[in-house]
């Protein structure tokens, strides 16, 4: 399949998955508001939303399998996009499933939330595809505006409203930086098309102050969106205040999509200016890895601990952006799969153990879980081990970290220091991940502990399927790794000649 992106009908062809998702969301909106607001209608909307996601998934796989290609243009048609789309859709399906069970428990009637989840996913898929900074901007805004609303979804919750306000104000603030960066890069290069920018930005002109200021502003903007230290201050409060399924969605899908755009812009547009961004990004990655883990170590609340853990993982993923080559991109995709499954699985366990009214869950509440709910405790242990990167018990998590370190060591500019910091940060993180496991397995169940309610079917499926997938591909990672290796952004495949330019620039 070949698409000429300058012809509108063929452009639409290259966007079939996105169109299915967005048109599906619009039809779903009609279903959601057709009659009175009831729990049954909200549940139906949620089920249909999962159906729309699966239809989109099929379209993505169809285009991926058909090895669709396209002319250079405003969006990319490459395996990196399809792989990221699959991760985003999986995260959306999981979040929707959790949301159906969660809203039933909390008596939260909101059929529109599923429409907003789908539209946010549409923005994310656009981000995964974008090859133009303007599309990056619009994709981020589509995703963010939907997420602001989702974090304040429960109108009864004062913490939810505060989370939404904080997320909104800092999100809009960071958008300003991102946009200023886009404007300055446009000024320096005369284009917003990342391929054109890539061909203009070479070692010769990277001293252009307009370009340097633009790259700096873009880094600040992206780092806010991925919650890298020191631009992470919105994340813990927002993750803590939002409804747990939405937290899972933000920690996994929103971060994945912002990272995918960050990575694509960086490896396609700015390889010629490596010397300009290498050091700032290295410091940000190191700060995020160490800072996120050290603060996570001090958390007593489960959701806040997971929030800081997700900040730390942004640091590990930043290493692949610093590496900025094909190896980094495939390590990034593999990591993202493991991270998404483990994080969403852990949040699913939090939901399964939650009580109506969403009491603040402490890590100490997990004491003795092994004695009452051995399977749930085992699944949670798998998620913690996967986030830690423990061999065998952590499944894919171990290989994910292994591939990131491998990419860091084999980069054109070997990132030995970052690899060492990654290992040290992982050792620090053992303090709290293993802490949860120890509490679950070793401590006795207190007499006044709450009785665990039966786990609803959807949440049950999410927890055990995630754990199973993590373990299965932990034993057989090769097929998955090969798929990730083939799924690099189109810019890496078509112009291998750029690597020497990048090397020359940094000398």
């Amino acid at each position, binding site marked *: 399949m070949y698409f000429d992106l300058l012809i509108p009908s063929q452009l639409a062809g290259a966007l079939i998955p996105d169109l299915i998702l967005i048109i599906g969301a619009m039809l779903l909106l009609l279903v959601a508001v057709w009659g009175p607001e009831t729990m049954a209608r909200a549940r139906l909307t949620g089920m249909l939303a999962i159906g729309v996601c699966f239809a989109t998934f099929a379209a993505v796989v169809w285009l991926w399998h058909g090895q669709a290609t396209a002319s250079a243009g405003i969006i990319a048609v490459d395996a990196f996009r399809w792989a990221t789309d699959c991760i985003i859709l999986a995260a959306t399906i999981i979040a929707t499933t959790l949301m159906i069970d969660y809203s039933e428990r909390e008596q939260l009637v909101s059929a529109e939330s599923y429409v907003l989840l789908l539209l946010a996913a549409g923005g994310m898929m656009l981000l995964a595809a974008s090859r133009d900074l303007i599309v990056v901007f619009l994709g981020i805004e589509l995703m963010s505006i939907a997420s602001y609303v989702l974090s304040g979804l429960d109108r009864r919750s004062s913490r939810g409203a*505060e989370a939404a306000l904080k997320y909104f104000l800092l999100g*809009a603030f960071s958008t300003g930086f991102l946009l200023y960066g886009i*404007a300055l890069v446009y000024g320096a290069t005369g284009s917003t098309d990342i391929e054109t920018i890539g061909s203009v930005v070479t070692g010769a002109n990277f001293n252009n102050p307009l370009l340097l200021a633009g790259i700096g502003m873009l880094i600040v903007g992206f780092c806010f969106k991925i919650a890298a230290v020191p631009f992470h201050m919105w994340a813990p409060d927002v993750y803590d205040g939002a409804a747990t399924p939405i937290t899972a969605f933000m920690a996994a899908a929103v971060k994945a999509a912002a990272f995918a755009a960050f990575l694509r812009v960086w490896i396609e547009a700015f390889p010629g200016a490596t010397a300009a961004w290498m050091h700032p990004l290295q410091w940000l990655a190191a700060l995020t890895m160490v800072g996120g883990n050290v603060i996570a170590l001090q958390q007593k609340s489960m959701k806040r601990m997971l929030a800081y853990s997700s900040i730390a993982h942004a640091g590990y993923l930043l290493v692949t952006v610093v590496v900025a080559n094909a190896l980094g991109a495939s390590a990034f995709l593999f990591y993202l799969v493991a991270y998404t499954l483990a994080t969403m699985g852990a949040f699913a366990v939090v939901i399964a153990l939650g009580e109506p009214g969403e009491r603040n869950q402490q890590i100490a509440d997990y004491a003795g879980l092994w004695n009452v709910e051995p399977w749930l405790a085992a699944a949670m242990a798998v998620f913690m081990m996967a986030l830690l990167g423990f061999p065998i018990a952590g499944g894919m998590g171990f290989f994910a970290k292994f591939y990131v370190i491998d990419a860091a060591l084999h980069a054109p500019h070997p990132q030995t220091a970052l690899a060492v910091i990654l290992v040290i940060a992982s050792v620090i993180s053992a303090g709290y991940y293993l802490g949860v496991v120890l509490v679950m397995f070793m401590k006795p169940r207190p007499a006044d502990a709450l009785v665990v309610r039966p786990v609803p079917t959807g949440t049950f499926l999410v927890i055990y399927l995630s754990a199973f997938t993590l373990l299965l591909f932990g034993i057989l990672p090769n097929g998955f790794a090969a798929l990730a290796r083939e799924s690099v952004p189109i810019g890496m495949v078509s112009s291998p000649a750029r690597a020497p330019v990048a090397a020359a620039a940094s000398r």
Partner: protein
Amino acid sequence: MIAEALFFSAVLFTIGVVGVLTRRNAIIIFMCVELMLNAVNLSFIALSRLHGSANGQVFVLFVMTIAAAEAAVGLAIIISIFRHHKSVDLRNINLLKG
């Protein structure tokens, strides 16, 4: 005039950023963000003039649309926080604390 326009734009952006970081009233902070977006728009227009193409002007149209969408959602969020706290003061919500 391009250099002057970019200079004005950078000054306005800085004023917006400092405003966001120093004020506590949610509505004023949001207006500071709008000022930042306006500053960026001035840059886009000046740079579009520099490159002699109208593309920068097209971007400004997109930015304005997004600003309108953000305003709708942002003000709805501010109204919902007002219902809980009867104020839009951020004293209890520290934006910079993680």
